[in-house]
């Protein structure tokens, strides 16, 4: 009797167990969905700010600048120069003329200068992509009411002049040129330091190191360094590269230096700091790639009388290099996105000229994004979003290269 009762209990229980199984499986699915929704929200949020309507107000209406009924766009360079002379301060006009005489300038150059200095278009209000698409009528009405003189146009904040212009205090004219060049300079230094150092360390650990306590210590240490927060590397860089090695990182050992970078807050310091930061990642990735090379290759090489280094150089490394490169590219994309250590090392807040040497002041794309995001004005949010898109495209293309390398060479051995 008791046996049957238990069986009934068991059977009663079954639907409930399946119900809760179904419930939890749904919950796990939803959680996965949340992760994907977060990614979509992030991307949409950025796109939303990078495009949209802009109401531009001109300080002086271009139509009033027309001479003898000829509109501004069609005026002769001499007339444009005249307009400029009339409307800007004499000092500015002279400075411009000294920089490059107006007679030698093209019509477009003078026209741009007139627009920038005389007409002075300024964004009175901006709208997000979503609003621009959905509430177009409302925006039109609002502009007509609040900014009667403003012109409404749809703008992509990421455009040719944004990519090519240097930093500016005016969001309408600011660009990422200096920041992108700065990022490239810094990452080049990082790579020059971390790649040979990291691959060398990986070769030592995989090919030479025996199971001694010191080698185990190195390995544990590398694993721990990979978990140190990036800002700590920034503090280390500040103490060692910026302050301790100031004569080297400021370029003073090569002769007289630019007084603005004499404090060592240079591209070189930034690159080396990021080099320390990604070194553990490069080592760990390279170790995995070297470990994946079959031992039979080494034995065959030794068997033919090759020395240890000949074996590594001619047989192990050629087979491991795709993996090493993939890992290095991923580490470099980490370096490209780093912000905190560079703020601590002393990225410059405002540079308008291109970096020319490792001893120049620096700013990078993430630093620029951080600064623009911290500004309260809406337009800076818009260009921050545009800069984020530039950064994400660079990172995405690096990752595509990494995945391509991995797939291309992974089946070879």
């Amino acid at each position, binding site marked *: 009797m008791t046996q049957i009762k238990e069986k009934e209990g068991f059977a009663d229980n079954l639907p409930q167990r399946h119900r809760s199984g179904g419930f939890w499986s749904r919950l796990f699915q939803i959680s996965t969905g949340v992760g994907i929704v977060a990614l979509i929200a992030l991307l949409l949020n950025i796109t939303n700010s990078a495009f949209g309507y802009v109401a531009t107000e001109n300080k002086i209406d271009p139509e009033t600048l027309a001479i003898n009924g000829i509109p501004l766009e069609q005026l002769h360079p001499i007339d444009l120069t005249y307009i400029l002379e009339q409307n800007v301060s004499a000092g500015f006009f002279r400075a411009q003329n000294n920089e490059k005489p107006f007679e030698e300038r093209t019509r477009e150059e003078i026209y741009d200068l007139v627009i920038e200095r005389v007409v002075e278009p300024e964004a009175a209000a901006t709208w997000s992509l979503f609003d621009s698409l959905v509430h177009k009528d409302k925006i039109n009405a609002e502009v007509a009411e609040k900014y009667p003189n403003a012109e409404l146009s749809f703008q992509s904040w990421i455009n040719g002049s944004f990519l090519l212009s240097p930093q500016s205090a005016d969001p309408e004219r600011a660009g990422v040129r200096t920041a992108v060049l700065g990022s490239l300079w810094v990452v080049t230094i990082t790579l020059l330091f971390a790649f040979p150092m990291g691959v060398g360390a990986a070769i030592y650990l995989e090919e030479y190191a025996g199971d001694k306590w010191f080698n185990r210590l190195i390995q544990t240490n590398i694993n721990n360094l990979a978990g140190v927060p990036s800002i700590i590397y920034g503090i280390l860089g500040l103490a060692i590269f910026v302050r301790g090695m100031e004569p080297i990182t400021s370029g003073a050992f090569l002769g007289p230096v630019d007084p603005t970078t004499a404090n060592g807050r240079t591209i070189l310091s930034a690159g080396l700091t990021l080099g320390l930061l990604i070194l553990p990642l490069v080592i760990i990735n390279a170790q995995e790639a070297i470990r994946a090379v079959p031992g039979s290759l080494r034995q065959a090489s030794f068997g033919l009388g090759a020395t240890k280094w000949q074996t590594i150089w001619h047989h192990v490394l050629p087979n491991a290099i795709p993996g090493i490169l993939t890992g290095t590219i991923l580490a470099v994309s980490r370096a490209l996105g780093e*912000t*905190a250590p560079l703020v601590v090392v002393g990225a410059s807040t405002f540079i308008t000229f291109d970096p020319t040497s490792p001893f120049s002041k620096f700013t990078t794309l993430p630093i620029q994004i951080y600064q623009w995001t911290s500004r309260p004005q809406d337009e800076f949010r818009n260009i921050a979003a545009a800069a984020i898109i530039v*950064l994400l495209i660079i990172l995405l293309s690096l990752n595509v290269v990494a995945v391509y390398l991995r797939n291309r060479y992974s089946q070879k051995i």
Partner: protein
Amino acid sequence: MQNSIDLRKKRRWGETLIQASLFIAGAFSILTTVGIVYELGKEAMNFFAQVSLWEYFTGADWNPQIDQFGIWALLNATLMTTFIAMLVALPIGLSISLYLSEYASHRARRTLKPILEVLAGIPTVVYGYFALTFMTPLLRGIFGRDVVDIYNTASAGIVIGILIIPMVSSMSEDALSAVPRALRAAAYGLGATKLETAVKVVLPAAISGIMAAFIVAISRAIGETMIVAVAAGAGSNFTFNPFEAAETMTGHIVRISGGDLSYDSIDYNSIFAIGLTLFFMTLSLNVISQRIVRKYREVYE
């Protein structure tokens, strides 16, 4: 037979030189750690020459202008953002790992995993932008503008959580996938449902890996900088209200080192003291996580 080959081992100086330089490259990482401990320690000593350890570790006010250096003002904000991040990342990350390893079809896994990897590859400053321009307005919309400040730890914490989800899910999934199929087959054979197999058999078998993932996630959240620098606010504030602005340890370092910091000022010294505190916190969490993996790993042969 007279000029026979000399079979004795030849000393090759080139080889020795190469090995020596490779050894230096390997040992360089030790130098980095020594550098961190030495430099941070040295400047922190200068700091503690002016501020007593007791004040530093017990004070709840951090106002360098009036010589108040109590780490709890900053540490509390760090713990708040970390706690909020864990509330988001641990349940969602664990659920995703269970879904991917136990439920998802091969195809679903192949598409979902790269998407999560993309999430992990986005720079943190972008997440900071996301926190400020999306999460904060969202929170203010839900709870009201009077309740939620423009800068607040809740928004920063939630977004740190989102940032960490892929890390938790991929580490946990590795642990779950390492559990042998035979255990699942045995559970099914005894009549367990899919959920019971996953939660009562597979999960306990992988618990060491999952715990390790959780601890590494906490360490990562504590060290996270840009999200809090952008979204959590400036100025120390000892509060337990997640909707108020409060500066974390990392956020404080970024803010005061952003300007041209003069050496040998107490501000300069203080970032090293905070950095050292941060370093030991994350280091001990990482060491604990490695210990757990090594000690409690179930070995199946």
